[in-house]
């Protein structure tokens, strides 16, 4: 039925044991968009079912325009990963394949707020005076 095999679910649950707080996944999807919209909603719901600390909200950006604008979402499907605050983590397109492990990693990291970076990296990033947008293009395989 679903995207995740029982083995996948076990592996993800094991990762989620490291979660340190609640994480909200907001999915922007449109029925008028390509089929990956519905697939993304289904996949994210499957993932969220694997931890009590995960919640999901599904929004249609054509209807919930203000929220789409607030999150800076201009395309669908899009998934916003929020922990104690909105860290600015977005997945555009279905987070499957290679991006799936990034999604799980992002959820765990957002739950703790721990970046897990070198101290000098964190220090240098803390001195940023302007906004920075990092786009990472990848493919499912």
């Amino acid at each position, binding site marked *: 039925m679903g995207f995740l095999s029982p083995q996948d679910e076990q592996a993800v649950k094991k990762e989620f044991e490291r979660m340190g707080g609640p994480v909200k996944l907001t999915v922007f999807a449109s029925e008028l968009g390509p089929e990956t919209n519905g697939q993304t909603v289904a996949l994210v719901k499957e993932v969220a079912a694997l931890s009590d600390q995960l919640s999901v909200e599904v929004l249609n950006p054509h209807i919930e325009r203000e929220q789409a604008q607030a999150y800076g979402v201009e395309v669908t499907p899009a998934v916003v990963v929020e922990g104690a605050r909105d860290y600015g983590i977005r*997945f555009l*397109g279905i987070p499957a394949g290679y991006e799936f492990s*990034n999604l799980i990693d992002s959820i765990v990291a957002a739950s703790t707020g721990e970046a897990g970076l070198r101290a000098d990296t964190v220090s240098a990033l803390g001195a940023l005076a302007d906004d920075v947008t990092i786009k990472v*293009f990848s493919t499912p395989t």
Partner: protein
Amino acid sequence: MRLAQHMAIASPRITAQCIEATEFPELSRQYRVMAVPKIVINDRVEFEGAIPEKDFLDAVLRAAEPTEREA
């Protein structure tokens, strides 16, 4: 690319967008995505493939520098 997301957690200035290239062909064309992962920072600095944290940081700092026009 996990570094991008982790940097977003470290800094409120940073937004990390993980984009499925085949789903957004126009965006991929616009950013000339020929190989993945391809990283584009502030539409100014770009590179392909995984690089060490130090080099990734240098790329972010380079992209964040004000341009001569803006300075």
